């Protein structure tokens, strides 16, 4: 934070004289020489000397300047000291911040006040500016990013130029609003509306209609009215499409919704309610239970305040916040958002009330900074999106070029008219452009989304599905994802003995054992120290357990819930009256409860807290039923026991009590009560690992995926959990802390990340973002989990951001690509498996779609190259194939479940081509040619039936195309020949789709289906029962409608209900018959069918993908519509004899044999890639 703003050239050594002279020397290094006069004036005007001295010969003169583009920081060092109000100052740091950066200004001041005094001597010992900068960098790192000095309320008021009693005056608030801007989150730069509108007017679909409209004006066509009408259609379509698009972007609104809409404020000494958007830094606000905090604010008065920070940190438990006005160094490594006397915009007050002064608004609040970070990250296309776009463009260009060459050849060489050549061009172009590919891929991804949802992974953006398939690294947090997010006491240290405690979660069943021997309840009650410790655990506690069915749920803090559970396992129920509670404070690190136990008149104090801090307040030890003085040896022994427990990843709490005479008259203040304590023992608890995680980690290792744990928890705990779940595959793992990470340069971090699985503990969101960014730079495909607002940048930066569905907040969910419904790591692995399956499926049907192209191209090539040869497939035929045969069977391929062994191969490379040139050539010339051969065979068979062709004759003998390709003048024989060529394209594709379902497993084998899936199918089949159907018919819809939509609904609902009535009655009748037949017919039939399918797997294989079967039926139904209905006049087909249809199936048989032979060799380790 400091070294980012202070460069070595801004460090001046050898200062001397008065402070004003020293300041002039600093100003000489300013990046803003033209603003120096303003600096001088501001320092003089505000008399900032009052708050400049931060202690230990260190002074930080600071100003806020309006219009300053960025903060200015200049450091001066004076070994001999400069004089300030009669004292010597040796370290002098000038700080100027932009006026609107109020929160950053306070944050920097608190930070400087903590860091500079701590490193003063080292700074003065530094030989020059460079080494002083190194000292500063080191000092800041060692202090950790979270150490702050607490400013007093008066200083905060001074810095913000506000009155903590009367608030700002209205005019000043107005001025600040004008200068600092409203308290809202700014939208990132978006595509302007007119570009969006234009984009919709010129989409591929719109261009097709534009072409149609413009054609109407071409001389010779002359249909201007029709052209104008189509033109209007294009405009209306573009407009509606634009309006639809406008509705879709909701990301920022989610963040904005977190900020309160209105708030209570004190201005001019009067309380009023104002729009939260008009809040400015320096405003005094009032917060009550249930309020959403409108801006970042420092608490001035607070009564029992607890805030729900989950929207910012993901932390589910409310955090206590209180007024803290002492000018002290906040011990421990605190993040800014953890400071106990600041509340943040977007969080909610769940308890108590407070008065606070606003320190940061809008984009300068913490939530605003996160919004800024999130918006700054560009959303990139997924690898598949990029590939597909490239492939479609390349293939389209190739098709266009090929078509253009043949257009010229046909027109200039083959003697075709330009129109004939143009039609030829269109045909070739349409046949080659894989325009079905993109929607089909969308379908496959959508199917993947559905399947993943069934496995508790909700994917928000379709391309993320395939990105999951090439995931190489999972960066995962610990709590709730790898562990169960509950605490359970597993060990106790009492009376110098170590006890084990068993049990499950918060269930009150479990036992205590000493050296492996279980203790009875009687033994527990006869053990004074243990009994007293359990009483302390139960009484010094705010949580309670609630029975919810078979499970127990903790109401309150999970750690406290674990202690209540512990006491209940021993049958301890407190019979006491609570007199006073000193709640847990992060600075004290303990809590205490004063009670009066039934039957005893005296006061008793129970204390629990962090072991070393609590031990520090203890003077006695309860041992063997008696109290004795705590010796140094005892302290060392207890500390060693604490270290041993912590090293096993356990969270340890110390428990103690006090009941001496002095306590009886002591005041309830924590400092007075919490001393002279009697140490009882230690309770160690852990968050158990989820049972599904170790196998999921093993699956990751088998699949070549690394897991990196990134947690805010302690290093030892994280390392212990890492060992339990099998991270590192048996290798020893050490956790690196966020502070260590801050010290490392990018190269070092890269080396760690490249080294395998690792753990990062006590990390901040910035660290997480840095790790993710570096991993991505290293070429890894990174999946990252997160649950709080602060995780949003990392979630968005990751290839796959995964938000927690149960614990995660809306902003994290919004930024993520995927949401885990059960917060379970196992679901991520399942989603990766599905992602891999989706890519396989996309590849399968890409091959499937490409296989059908040669059958459409060959007729054109032969037609143009061999004059006199009829055209076997018209443009309309190509379109019929395109719409009729490509889509629905391809959808079926998209729903294929993951193939066996999919998680035993390494992740797909990010740059691995979906469609390589070799792949396209193989699809065209190997399988495609085989299919085209079958089409021509049927075509000739038709010619033979018509008596125009026989073996030995060329294709020129087939019925001729009409002159000028005027198809409405085509002969019936020619139309029949078109049908004979078209139908095999459908039948061969039926075989093709069945073959493409697996890469090497035979369609006729039992292994074709995953055993679990086969069992599920058979059970479903055996258990199928008809469902009763009740036709809900309502024709008396209310007429009292107010909107046009309601009026339309009221009008159409009865009409549609009446129209659907016959169908509903039919369904109802059918369902009644089915229900009547259930026992005598359906139940035995379903059972027999299931047994039959089990015995004959090929039948089950054929029906196991209903969508493919539906696709096949649709293809055949469309053929019927094309051949036997008026559509035949549009698509130019004619019916043929039944045996021609039958003959057309020879291609299907041929292909099946070809593919089965290929699979046979593949199973034996020969990929036979040259065969496609």
């Amino acid at each position, binding site marked *: 934070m400091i070294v980012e703003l202070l460069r070595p050239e801004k460090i001046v050594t050898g200062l001397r004289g008065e402070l004003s002279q020293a300041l002039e020397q600093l100003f000489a290094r300013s990046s803003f020489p033209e603003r120096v006069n303003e600096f001088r004036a501001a320092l003089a005007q505000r008399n900032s000397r009052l708050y400049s001295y931060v202690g230990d010969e260190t002074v930080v003169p600071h100003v806020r300047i309006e219009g300053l583009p960025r903060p200015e920081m200049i450091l001066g060092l004076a070994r001999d000291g400069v004089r300030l109000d009669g004292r010597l100052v040796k370290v002098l740091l000038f700080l100027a911040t932009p006026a609107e950066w109020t929160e950053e200004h306070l944050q920097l001041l608190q930070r400087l006040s903590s860091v500079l005094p701590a490193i003063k001597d080292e700074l003065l010992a530094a030989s020059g500016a460079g080494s002083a900068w190194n000292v500063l960098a080191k000092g800041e790192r060692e202090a950790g990013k979270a150490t702050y000095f607490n400013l007093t309320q008066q200083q905060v008021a001074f810095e913000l130029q506000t009155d903590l009693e009367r608030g700002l005056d209205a005019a000043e608030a107005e001025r600040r609003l004008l200068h600092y801007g409203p308290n809202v989150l700014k939208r990132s730069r978006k595509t302007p509306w007119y570009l969006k509108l234009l984009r919709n007017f010129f989409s*591929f*679909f719109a261009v*097709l*209609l534009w*072409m*149609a409209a413009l*054609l*109407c004006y*071409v001389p*010779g*066509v*002359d*249909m201007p*009215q*029709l052209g104008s*009408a*189509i033109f209007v*259609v*294009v405009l*209306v*379509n573009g407009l*509606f*499409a634009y309006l*639809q698009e406008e*509705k*879709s972007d909701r990301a920022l609104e989610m963040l904005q919704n977190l900020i309160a809409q209105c708030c209570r404020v004190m201005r001019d000494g009067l309380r009023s309610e104002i729009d939260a958007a008009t809040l400015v830094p320096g405003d005094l606000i009032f917060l009550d239970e249930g309020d959403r905090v409108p801006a970042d604010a420092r608490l001035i008065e607070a009564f029992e305040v607890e805030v729900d920070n989950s929207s910012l940190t993901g932390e589910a438990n409310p955090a206590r916040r209180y007024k803290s006005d002492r000018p002290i160094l906040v011990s421990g490594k605190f993040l800014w958002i953890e400071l106990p006397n600041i509340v943040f915009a977007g969080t909610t007050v769940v308890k108590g009330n407070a008065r606070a002064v606003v320190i940061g608004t809008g984009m300068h609040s913490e939530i605003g900074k996160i919004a800024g970070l999130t918006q700054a990250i560009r959303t990139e296309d997924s690898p598949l999106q990029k590939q597909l776009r490239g492939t479609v463009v390349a293939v389209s260009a190739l098709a266009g070029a090929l078509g253009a060459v043949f257009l010229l050849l046909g027109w200039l060489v083959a003697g075709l008219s330009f*129109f004939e050549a143009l*039609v030829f061009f269109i045909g070739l172009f*349409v046949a080659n452009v894989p*325009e*079905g590919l993109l*929607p*089909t891929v*969308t*379908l496959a991804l*959508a*199917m993947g*989304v559905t399947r993943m*949802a069934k496995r508790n992974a*909700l*994917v*928000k953006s*379709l391309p993320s599905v395939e990105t999951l398939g090439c995931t190489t690294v999972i960066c995962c947090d610990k709590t709730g994802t790898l562990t169960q997010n509950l605490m359970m006491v597993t060990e106790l240290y009492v009376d110098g003995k170590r006890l084990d405690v068993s049990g499950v979660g918060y269930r009150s069943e479990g036992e205590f054992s000493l050296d492996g021997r279980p203790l009875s309840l009687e033994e527990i009650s006869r053990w004074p120290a243990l009994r007293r410790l359990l009483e302390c655990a139960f009484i010094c506690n705010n949580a309670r357990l609630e029975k919810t069915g078979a499970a127990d749920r903790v109401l309150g803090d999970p750690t406290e819930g674990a202690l209540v559970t512990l006491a209940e396992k021993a049958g301890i129920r407190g019979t006491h009256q609570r007199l006073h509670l000193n709640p847990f404070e992060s600075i004290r690190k303990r809590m205490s409860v004063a009670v009066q136990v039934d039957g005893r008149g005296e006061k008793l104090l129970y204390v629990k807290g962090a072991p070393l801090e609590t031990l520090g307040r203890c003077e006695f030890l309860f041992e063997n039923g008696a109290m004795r003085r705590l010796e140094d040896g005892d302290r060392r022994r207890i500390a060693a026991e604490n270290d041993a427990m912590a090293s096993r990843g356990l969270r340890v709490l110390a428990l103690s009590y006090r009941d001496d005479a002095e306590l009886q008259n002591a005041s309830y203040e924590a400092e007075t009560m919490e001393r002279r304590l009697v140490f009882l023992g230690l309770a160690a608890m852990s968050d158990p690992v989820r049972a599904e995680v170790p196998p999921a980690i093993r699956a990751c290792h088998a699949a070549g995926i690394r897991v990196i744990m990134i947690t805010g928890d302690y290093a030892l705990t994280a390392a212990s959990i890492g060992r339990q779940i099998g991270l590192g595959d048996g290798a020893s793992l050490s956790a690196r802390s966020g502070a260590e990470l801050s010290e490392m340069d990018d190269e070092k971090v890269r080396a760690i990340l490249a080294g395998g699985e690792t753990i990062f503990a006590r990390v901040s969101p910035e660290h997480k973002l840095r790790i993710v960014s570096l991993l991505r730079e290293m070429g890894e495909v990174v999946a990252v989990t997160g649950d709080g607002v602060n995780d949003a940048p990392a979630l968005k930066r990751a290839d796959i951001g995964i938000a927690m*569905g149960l614990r995660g907040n*809306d902003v994290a*969910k919004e930024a993520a690509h995927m*949401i885990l*419904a059960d917060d379970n790591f196992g679901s991520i692995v399942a989603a990766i498996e599905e992602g891999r399956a989706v890519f396989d499926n996309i590849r399968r049907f890409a091959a499937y779609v490409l296989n059908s192209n040669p059958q459409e191209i060959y007729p054109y090539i032969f037609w143009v190259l061999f004059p006199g040869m009829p055209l076997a497939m018209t*443009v*309309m035929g190509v*379109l019929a194939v*395109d*719409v009729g045969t490509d*889509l*629905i069977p391809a*959808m079926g391929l998209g729903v294929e479940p993951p193939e066996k062994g999919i998680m035993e191969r390494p992740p797909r490379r990010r740059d691995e081509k979906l469609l390589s040139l070799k792949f396209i050539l193989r699809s065209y010339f190997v399988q495609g040619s085989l299919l085209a051969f079958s089409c021509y065979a049927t075509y000739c068979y038709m010619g033979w039936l018509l008596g125009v062709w026989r073996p030995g004759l060329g294709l020129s003998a087939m019925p001729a195309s009409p002159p000028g390709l*005027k*198809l*409405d003048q085509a002969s019936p024989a020619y139309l029949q020949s078109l049908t004979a060529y078209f139908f095999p394209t459908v039948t061969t594709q039926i075989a093709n789709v069945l073959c493409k379902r697996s890469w090497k497993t035979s369609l006729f084998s039992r292994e074709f289906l995953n055993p679990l899936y086969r069992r599920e199918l058979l059970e479903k089949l055996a258990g199928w029962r008809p469902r009763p159907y009740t036709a809900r018919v309502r024709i008396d819809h209310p007429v009292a409608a107010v909107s046009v939509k309601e009026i339309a609904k009221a009008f159409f609902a009865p009409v549609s209900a009446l129209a659907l009535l016959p169908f509903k009655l039919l369904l109802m009748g059918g369902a009644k018959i089915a229900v009547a037949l259930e026992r005598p017919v359906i139940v035995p039939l379903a059972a027999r069918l299931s047994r039959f399918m089990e015995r004959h797997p090929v039948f089950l294989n054929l029906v196991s993908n209903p969508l493919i079967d539906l696709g096949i039926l649709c293809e055949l139904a469309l053929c019927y519509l094309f051949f036997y209905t008026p559509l035949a006049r*549009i698509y130019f087909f004619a019916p043929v004899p039944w045996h021609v249809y039958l003959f057309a199936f020879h291609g299907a048989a041929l292909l099946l044999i070809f593919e089965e032979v290929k699979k046979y060799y593949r199973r034996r380790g020969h990929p036979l890639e040259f065969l496609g």
Partner: protein
Amino acid sequence: MLPTAAFLLKLSKHLAFLTSLFILGRASGRVDVDPLWIFGAAALASALHLASRAFRMRSVRQMQSGSATR
């Protein structure tokens, strides 16, 4: 819903392309289609296109609201 959207999108493009072919066919005398039918094909294509987009957006919304309720 997404499969329906993709199918409708494909069908709409098919119809838009057919519209151009009908116009060309009618101009060259190859097919005799009434201009009203051609306009109908264009209008139907547009309606299918909008419907496919509506289906796609609705399914995305459903996914989002599904995640929120969970």
